[in-house]
């Protein structure tokens, strides 16, 4: 047991789509300053779990609480204002705006709301953090793939979130970009941010996560440090099938 109360906790969180149970009775806690990996094979319900936390979907049953307050019934915008911020599996930027304006969106409307020069300065600071300050006035259409991901990350960071949800943020990067991406998330970790990572890249999971929750077919099958869970026979079976376990 941890002495301090968890920032985020899920108890029996369930999401059904008709007869399909996408997320089945999931329980887990995320402590402050912790980086938690949410891993599992494709279709295991990781992204749906993230959607439940961020309010994109409402849980069918179970509770999700942020510092002890239930948030499962709230809309996405209310959850964002309470301090849970996310990136999307397929990068979503604001196409008509500049890089800086994209990031300003997070600074102006997020958990801590800013305006005017304060919002500009904060957005700029976030762009420096992700290494994009020199592209601040570029149009988002002119960016490379990893840079679009940086913009999205800066936008979520600009809202000063209590919990950051990264949905396969490292997916689709080439080896060089991947090294940069992992270094960037490590920097966020060192800043003491609370992060949930949905990720497939094993190197990233090993080097970034304090703890992992493994999902398979909507259920939690393991929880522990990356080394523990990745050597768990049930986890190996879930990823590779019976023969390799």
């Amino acid at each position, binding site marked *: 047991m941890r002495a301090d109360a968890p920032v985020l906790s899920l108890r029996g969180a369930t999401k059904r789509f008709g007869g399909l149970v996408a997320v089945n009775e999931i329980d887990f806690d995320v402590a402050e300053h912790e980086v938690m990996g949410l891993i599992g094979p494709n279709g295991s319900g990781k992204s749906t779990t993230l959607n439940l936390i961020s309010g994109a979907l409402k849980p069918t049953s179970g509770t999700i609480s942020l510092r002890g307050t239930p948030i499962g019934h709230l809309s996405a*915008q209310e959850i964002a204002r309470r301090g849970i911020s996310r990136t999307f599996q397929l990068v979503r930027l604001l196409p008509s705006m500049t890089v800086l304006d994209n990031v300003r969106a997070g600074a102006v409307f997020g958990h801590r709301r800013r305006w005017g020069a304060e919002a500009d300065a904060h957005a700029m600071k976030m762009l420096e953090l992700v290494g994009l300050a020199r592209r601040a006035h570029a149009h988002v259409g002119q960016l490379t793939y990893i840079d679009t991901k940086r913009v999205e990350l800066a936008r979520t960071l600009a809202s000063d979130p209590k919990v950051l949800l990264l949905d396969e943020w490292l997916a689709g990067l080439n080896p060089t970009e991947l090294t940069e991406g992992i270094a960037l998330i490590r920097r966020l970790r060192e800043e003491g941010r609370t992060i949930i990572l949905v990720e497939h890249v094993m190197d990233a999971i090993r080097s970034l996560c304090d703890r992992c929750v493994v999902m398979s077919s909507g259920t939690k099958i393991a929880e522990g440090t990356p080394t523990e869970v990745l050597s768990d026979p049930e986890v190996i079976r879930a990823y590779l099938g019976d023969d390799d376990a």
Partner: protein
Amino acid sequence: MMTTTEYRNLAIGAALFILAACLPFVGGAYLLTIGVTIAMYTVLATSWALFSGPTHYISLATAAFFGLGTYTTGLGFEHLDYWLLVPLAAILGAALAAIVGVATLRLSGVYFVIFTLGLAELIRQLVTWGQNVSGQKGLYVLTDLTEVHIYWQLLVLAALVYLTGWLIGRSRLGFALRIIGDDEEVARHSGINTARAKVLLFMVSGAAAAATGAILAPRYIYIEPALAFTPMLSFQVVIMALLGGTGRLWGPVVGVIPFTFLWEAISASFPNQTTLLLGLCFLAIVFILPKGFVGLLTTIRTRMNAREAFS
């Protein structure tokens, strides 16, 4: 905190308004009539674009708000001071927009369009029914207001609409709407109350359209539902705004002026085929100028910049 460009734009705007206000002293009766039409559509198209421009929700409810405004004047001018009627119409327009907005802005795309078109028709049928029951055919609005008074009132209203639009553009609300227009999902997940932002802007455009109706009622002298709630008005406002372009505050008026003259020519030469020609104009605009004159200008500017960059 204003930049030099903003001061310059404000000065240009003010100069154009003073110039427009002088029209009755220099032009004849015909020019004044055209002026009233242009001022009317400028208010309607600009306020329409304030909402529909950033959100991309095409509203065909202009006639509903406009009609509400004309009937506010029509029913109220004998009982209330005339100068109270226009603000009253604006309040009623905003209230109707709030109700409609809360009920429908969760709808997206074509459902919203159909609902707004249906709304204007519904109100028209209700008023017609009310008149049948009471035995009245229409309303006479007899005032001593002249065309010049109406023109100046519309100009003041237009100035208010531009000022509101400019202030919204600089506010958090304006920024929220641009984000909503780009990606509503991102807007929600960034913490924007998307429903409230959309309803507020819809109320602004509803209030402006109702005020326009209230100002124009004395010009019609005799108002009836078919005139006050004509769906043609809603379509014309959309066409004019799209022709000008909704990306900039000054966009719609750039569409209103040429379209008003075009429409005058069509009405004079082909009085029986106006609807057909209106449809053709709509098609032509959508195909040739999908982003209006504003979009055309942006494209030209981008091309020129690109050419400079390569030369």
